[in-house]
């Protein structure tokens, strides 16, 4: 499969928005491995609108974390990122992220686009106080430390933490939820425009997840942020996100408004994902796991990569790549030949309420 050709072109089929803050075109990440080329991000194109909350959803190993790293040109070492990523600052010229030199990318990261990783505990240096992380970040970017620390205190207070106590603690002295919030504050200390969050709540309990989401909403409004939220938990993010992008096998398979996805998802994978997710409203017996397992990045199935697990798959799906296409509306894109049959073939196990705000 090392001769695997790019399977999807961008152009008209990309979900375009009026005022993009980040444009991603044909983003691809490959790892050279003993047993072949591992393509862990396969020609992903998507726009992120200024001020929106975009949720990126997928199973573990679907490439969603790679997409997050790609936005900061921060793919880990043996991985090679190609494609085009353009950042549009609020004022000034568009920035070609992948063309930046070392200094340029250093300034772009954290000052313009910031990131919160999964597992806050492991994101802090265990032998340095939390406050030290803020200070060194400000110094490294030649910000005014005093003003910066003032901002840090404000951010921490916004996140319902006691600023002085947190700054004077080591990470292991804080609870998981506190660490996560401190990490969010750290990622916002340089006043970025975009905040990319990779499973920021995965290690927390349900209550803490909800409260962090609520806080994010407040922060977003106060600091004028664009949020990219990456998670495996579709229902969790659906409440916060304006738009959802579903990933399967290192590609996007469906992109639409959150409500549109929740009420009338058209890709069989998205529908199964919704059915497989535990939900308080649904009886346990109605929960359906998706049969089969996620594909190996070295050996992605030909045609539609979901066909081995898809109940609707036919010969066309095996041989041809469906490509992105508009469905119900121009803005609801999905990569499926049989999108019209999907809702009948895979009925939702519960009626989902859609709140039209």
């Amino acid at each position, binding site marked *: 499969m090392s001769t695997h050709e790019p399977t999807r072109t961008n152009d008209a089929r990309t979900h375009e928005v009026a005022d993009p803050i980040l444009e991603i075109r044909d983003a691809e990440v490959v790892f050279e491995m003993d047993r072949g080329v591992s393509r862990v991000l396969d020609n992903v194109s998507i726009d992120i609108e200024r001020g929106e909350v975009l949720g990126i959803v997928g199973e573990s190993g679907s490439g969603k974390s790679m997409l997050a790293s790609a936005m900061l040109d921060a793919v880990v070492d043996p991985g090679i990122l190609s494609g085009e990523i353009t950042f549009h600052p609020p004022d000034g010229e568009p920035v070609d992220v992948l063309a930046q030199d070392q200094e340029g990318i250093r300034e772009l990261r*954290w000052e313009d686009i910031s990131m919160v990783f999964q597992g806050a505990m*492991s*994101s802090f*240096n265990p*032998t*340095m106080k939390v406050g030290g992380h803020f200070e*060194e970040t400000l110094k*490294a970017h030649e910000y005014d430390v005093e003003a910066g620390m003032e901002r840090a205190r404000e951010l921490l207070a916004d996140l319902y933490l006691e600023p002085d106590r947190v700054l004077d603690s*080591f990470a292991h002295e804080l609870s998981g939820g506190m660490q996560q919030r401190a990490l969010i504050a750290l990622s916002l200390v340089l006043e970025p425009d975009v905040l990319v969050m990779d499973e920021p709540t995965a290690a927390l309990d349900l209550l803490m997840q909800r409260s962090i989401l609520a806080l994010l909403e407040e922060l977003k409004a106060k600091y004028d942020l664009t949020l990219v939220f990456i998670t495996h938990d579709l229902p969790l993010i659906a409440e916060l996100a304006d738009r959802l992008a579903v990933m399967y096998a290192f590609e996007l398979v469906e992109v639409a408004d959150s409500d549109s996805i929740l009420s009338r998802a058209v890709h069989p994978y998205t529908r199964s994902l919704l059915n497989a997710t535990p939900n308080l409203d649904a009886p346990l017996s109605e929960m359906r796991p998706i049969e089969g397992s996620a594909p190996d990045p070295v050996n992605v199935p030909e045609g539609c990569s979901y066909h081995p697990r898809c109940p609707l798959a036919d010969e066309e799906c095996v041989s041809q790549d469906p490509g992105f296409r508009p469905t119900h509306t121009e803005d609801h894109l999905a990569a499926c030949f049989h999108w019209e049959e999907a809702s009948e073939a895979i009925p939702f196990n519960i009626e989902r309420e859609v709140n039209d705000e």
Partner: protein
Amino acid sequence: MNWFIKRIGQGLFTVFAVATLTFVLVRTMPGSPSQRLASQIREQQPNMSTQEINAMVAQRIGVDPDRPLHEAYIEYMVNLAQGNLGESINYQEPVFDIIARALPWTAFVMTISLLFVFVMGLGLGAVMAYREGSRFDVGSSLIAIFLSSVPYYVAAVILIYVLAIELSAFPLSGRYPSDVEPGFTLAFVGGALYHAVLPAASFVITSWGGFALGMRGNSIQVLGQDYIRVAKLRGLTDRRIALRYVGRNAVLPMWTSFLITIGFMFGSSIILEEIFSYRGIGYYMFDSIDNRDYPVMMGTFLVITICVIVAVLIADMTYGKIDPRVEAGGDNEAY
């Protein structure tokens, strides 16, 4: 503070245990030193009465063969507590004085050795980790493993053969040049350093490898941690990441090995100082074993134990200061 008291208590207990152990060995073993010493004195001075001999034995090693066990034990311990380690059979002088003269020399060589082992081992280990898989890394690892398989006394013999005998570049034995008056003069200190090179080198050459490999492993592990990645994304300089992030977090787990090395070095000083005729505490311990000079043997053993305990205590307390994860009073996993 509780933890501190507990530590000191434990140290005192260890001294007590070692003192008791030496007493038991000296007093109760068949053909025990006290009996041997008694017969030794009897041979030298056949006119002495048994009582006189016993009194002499008691004076020499603090153990009177005729006294009931518990009484003798208490007297021995009281003597120890007063700093009375008995009198050397061989040198006819208090053991305490012998040790007081010898100990600084051992400490001198050990400090130099430890410094070099630590700096070389940790520095090279970190560089190896940064260049993991490179020719430098593979070559250094191989050399480190090989040198770790060389016993320090083998290294000493080879160093003596090459540098002292064949090339005459370094002195073969002794603590300082014989033609220099001891004192804080440049000639004396320089001469002492010159004489310390080979003993220290024997230890450094064979011990840095273990530290380097340990440091390499730790650094590789730290380099793979999320916080390193986040630090890079935050735009910190490589220098800061290397020192404040990788260095510090990789060195801390080495602390235990460092402590064990202190004890290990005191042990190796017995063999090394004998080979180099370097009159430190190890030399006298070896000498006492050769001559069955039991008071010196017991005294040196006890003092070496106390030195190790103190060194470990100091290291242990500083560790609590530099690693925030170890909370004083909590369970100290440093050691």
